Each structure stands twice: as C-alpha cells, then as structure tokens.
C-alpha cells in the first residue's frame, strides 16, 4: 500500500540507501513503491539529499518508464504490446480494454480506479497474450478473462 508523502519518510528511504547517488534508480523505485509517484517535492528532496542537481534527478526520472510523476489510478493495468503478444491478438485486446474503460493507453479513468499502460514484454511469452495488474502477471488472456480482470479492478 502506498502512503502520503512526508519528508520524514522520504529521508528514511534515502538513508536506507546511504544517500548514495549511484543508488538513485533504486531510491526512485522505493519512492514510487511507497508514494505511488514522484512529486516535485520528492524530486527536490532527493536532489538535495543526494547532492545532485534537480536537472540530474529529472533526467533520470524522465528517462525510465517506471518513474511516473503523476498520481496513478488505484490499479495499474499494463497490457503487453510486444511482438509475442501481438501474434496472439494483443492489438484487439488493447482496443477492447480501451473501449471498456473509456480511456486510451497511458490514461487514467475519471473515477481514479484504473491507469492503463503499455508494457514491452512481461516474459510470459509462452502464454501470450499477457497483462500485468498491479504486480500480478496473467497469461493466456482472452476477451472474457480480460473483462473479468478489469471488472475486479472496478473498471
């Protein structure tokens, strides 16, 4: 479960990594796991405590897909859009989930329940197509299984 950002918790996380600049990618992961996203305040604090410029930290944050800077929905649905899943109908599944949720990929539903993201391979390619909901990786997803999984997210 994610919690609301506080500078005290943020410092604790940074200290777990000894405030080492070479741990920046791991620190950002820990922030996203704890606070769901990286706020401006978080980036400012990280740069200060790691003795890096804000531009340095921003450069790393914006480089990686995992480091979101906006609050995501309650559930994050990642749909694999890479080749193995394409061969098993992921394009159709993507269209289906977009229609069901009434959003496009990289958007969040109005009720804040679901954020839809693309992912380039979940390593579940022998059971394509695959999707990931929060930290769970589902294989052999078809239209009805997808509907069921999305409904469980409140979508």
């Amino acid at each position, binding site marked *: 479960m994610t919690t609301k950002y506080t500078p005290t918790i943020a410092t604790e996380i940074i200290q777990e990594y000894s405030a080492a600049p070479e741990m920046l990618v791991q620190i950002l992961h820990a922030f996203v796991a704890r606070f769901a996203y990286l706020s401006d305040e978080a980036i400012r604090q990280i740069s200060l405590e790691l003795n890096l410029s804000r531009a340095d930290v921003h450069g790393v944050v914006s480089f990686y897909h*995992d480091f979101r800077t906006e609050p995501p929905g309650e559930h994050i649905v990642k749909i694999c859009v890479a080749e193995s899943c394409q061969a098993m109908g992921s394009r159709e599944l993507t269209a289906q989930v977009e229609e069901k949720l009434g959003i496009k990929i990289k958007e969040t539903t109005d009720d804040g329940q679901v954020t839809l993201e693309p992912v380039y391979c979940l390593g579940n390619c022998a059971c394509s197509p695959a999707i990931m909901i929060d930290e769970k990786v589902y294989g052999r997803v078809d239209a009805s299984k997808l509907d069921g999984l999305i409904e469980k997210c409140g979508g």
Partner: protein
Amino acid sequence: MTESVTVFIQYETAAVWLGANEIADRIAAAAEKNNVKVNIVRNGSWGMSWLEPLVEVAVGDDRIAYGPVDINDVDSLFATSFLQGGEHDLKLGPTADIAYLKNQDRWTFRRCGLIDPLSITEFQAHGGFAGLKKALESGTEHVLEQVKTSGLRGRGGAGFPTGIKWQTVASTDAGQKYITCNADEGDSGTFSDRILMESDPLTVIEGMIIAGFAVGASKGYVYLRSEYPLTQQIFGKALKVARESGWLGDNIQGSDFSFDIDLHIGAGSYVCGEETAMLESLEGKAGVIRFKPPLPAIEGLFGKPTVVNNVVTLGSVPDIVAFGGKAYDEYGVGRSKGTLAFQLAGNIKRGGLVEKAFGLTLRELIEDWGGGTASGRDVRAVQIGGPLGAYFSADQLDTPMDYEAFAAVGGMIGHGGIVVFDDTVDMAEQARFAMAFCAIESCGKCTPCRIGSVRGVEVIDRIVANDDREKNINLLNDLCDTMIDGSLCAMGGMTPFPVQSALKYFPEDFNK
C-alpha cells in the same frame, strides 16, 4: 492416516497467475477433508509452459504429471486417486518421459523443475556447487582454461566468447573489479533468464561467484528488469539463503575468497539491456549507452574492469567447471558450441523452453516441439532473436540453429526467442512497430537511432498509404542502411533487420 504423499506444484510466474497458488491451497484442503497427508513442494518450472499449471505426484521413483490443471479439476483428481498416480484425462505420465522434456539436452536448466529452488540441500544433492568447489580447489587459471575450452559464447544475444571476455578482465590490473549479471531480459519472446532465476537461482549465483574467482572480483551486481516481480522475490530469497549458508559473503566455505552480490532493479527501459546502458543504470544514471572502446572488460562499472554476462551464460558455467570444458564443447556444431535454451512463443501450440544443442532446425523446434500454431492456421512469419531480429518466412524454416548459419541469411539467434505468427499477420504493421518501438526506447545518444526511427515510422506510413510508394521504399532502404552503419549500438543498428526482412520476404503486405 497413511504415509504422506509429495505433491509438486510450480512456483513460477506463468504458473502462479494461471492459478498454481489456488490449486495448491485447494489440494491441501481436499487432502485434509479426505484424511490423507500431503507434502506440497513448490518446485521451479520445467519450462513446459503450455502444460501450466502442472501438478506432479511422487509415486515410487517417478513423478507423475497432470496438466494443465484448473482449480475445478482438483475434486476429480482426488476422485480418481491421483495421489497414487490414478488415471485422469489430465494425466501425462511420468514427467521425465514427456517427449518435450525427454528429447532436450538439459545442461544449464537441468535442475529446473526438479528441485525446490531455495533448498541448498536439494541443489547440492543434484550437483550444485560442485563447479565452485572445483574452482576453489583448482585455481583461476584452470577455470579460465575450462571456460575457453567449452566454446561458451554470450547467451544474451551477441555471442561473444565468454572465456576471452573473462581473460581480458583477469589480465587487467585494478584494485577493484566487478561481475555484472544482465537480467534485463527485454526481448519479446524470451523468458529463459526468468525461468532460470526463478527455478534454479543458486546456479546463477554459483556462476557469478566462479566468475568473480576467475577474474579477481569481489563484488557482483544483478540487474533485473522490473517487469519480473516474482523473479525479484525468489532471487532475493536465494541470495539470502546462499549468504546464510556461507556460500556468499566473506571467506566462502572457509576459503580465502570473498564475494557478494547486490540485486538492482531496472525501471522499464529496453535499451538498458545493452551492456553499457546497463552499467550506467547500475551507477544510478539514465541508461544512455557509452562509446566503445573502452570495453567494459577494461573500463566498466565505476570505471573498473567489469564482466558483463547474461544470466544463462553465467548459469552455464558451474557445470562447465565441474565436468570440464570438453564436455560442453561436445554439444553443438561449428563455432556454436554447447546448448541454447530456445524459447517458443507467440502463436504456438506448445510454448515453452527447449534447451537443445545448436544445430537443429527452426522447423524441428516449431513443428516437433511447438506443434505448429496455437490458432491451427499456417505459420507465415517467425521472428527470432527479439525485436531487433529479422523475420523469417515459412520457407526458411529449415535454417539450422547456429550463430553463423543465421548470420549468413541476415538473421540472428540472439537470446534464442522464437516468436511465431500465423497467416493473419500484417507484416507492414510489424515493420512499422519495429521502428515505433525503437523511437520509444532509443536512449537518444545517436542521431540515426533517435531520429531515424521516427522517420522510419513516417516513411512506412507513406508506403502503406501508396504515397509515392517506389520512391519511399528506396528512401526506407537508405534510412535502414544509415541506421545500420551509423548507430552506436544494436538498438538503432539492428532495428532495420525486422523492417528490411519484412519488406524483402513479404512485399505484398506493403502493396495493398
């Protein structure tokens, strides 16, 4: 109550979310209700993904397999006495006799599925740590010699001889050296790193320690992609188990050699699988690739001599040291020695991992192991080696799986991923995706990759829209040549391969 029966249920990404955990709970509950004792072991994956979730029962000396099991099958399994190996529609017979598995050449993956991945006792009972013990006894020169003799080449895709890389690091003078394990398995159609790390993580750890011993490094890093949360959990536990039992850390097993491993998690960037981008990411930076030279073997992580090896490469080493390089060299053909874990993916009936000596044909893999397409339609295209690998047409299936034979026809084996498409595929769309993917994932350092990929998408759109088609096809070919010749790394340098092969073998798809 009778004697307890051992039931194996796999704990691996594919199986877990196809219901393996719930099936394990249901079997435990049903056993209690039926007043029988069961000992549920969560083993690793055999790599027979199409049979997941697989349930095995120990009967005498055999393990009788049932699969793919649905949670609703548990009652009928009990009703037909599956705990005694009873007949059932899902019964597959002894696991070891399943042709898909029996006909493989298991070397690196020989313990996968067999053991509880986190049991040091079972690992050692099946030959684990024999290579490391031999290494510590016989010295660094001996280890380097065996790895060179084995002919082992990098299994991450580039196929560089591992022994030569290790020798370079060993011969470079430095106070600190590093071993890095590249577990950023981003290629679509590949999952062998994941299966090895989930099903026999200790073998990867053992390989890293041997590498450290051989080159004089005391510190290792594993760079694992974030898309593998279960792998992270299992591998993290394996590191702990190894540390607690004295196989990792200071003075390993009382020797004067010390080595430890940190696990770092990637952040969703494909290009971080490129070795220098991975090193940048391990240093906490954006994964922008580095110019080569200097090679990482000379100036790698934090500027120090660094071995960068793929998971499967490192996992192949312990038995090479234990049994001698010659034993490994006996597998394979030409300069492609040993085995490769081929991965059957995409539109395939029997998807999974097939570890086999180099030299068999693509057709044998797709037809004999894979059973053709999942849809039952004709195979039309096959992409081998991930998103940067060429598309093969159905009449090229007799190409032998061998690094040089593939290079000769403009393909690459890469990490051994094989993605099958049936005859509904639109190859112009696949070519466009290759460029679009490069545009998204380019690190941005060099122009051919960063800009070329964006222009590539636009040109393909014009070709498909029949907007001055001939001229734009020429332009696309020129652009591909520029990317191949001018890009700094494989991302921009190989993205043209799927594009050009689609254009060459499936021109009709660009001409609708």
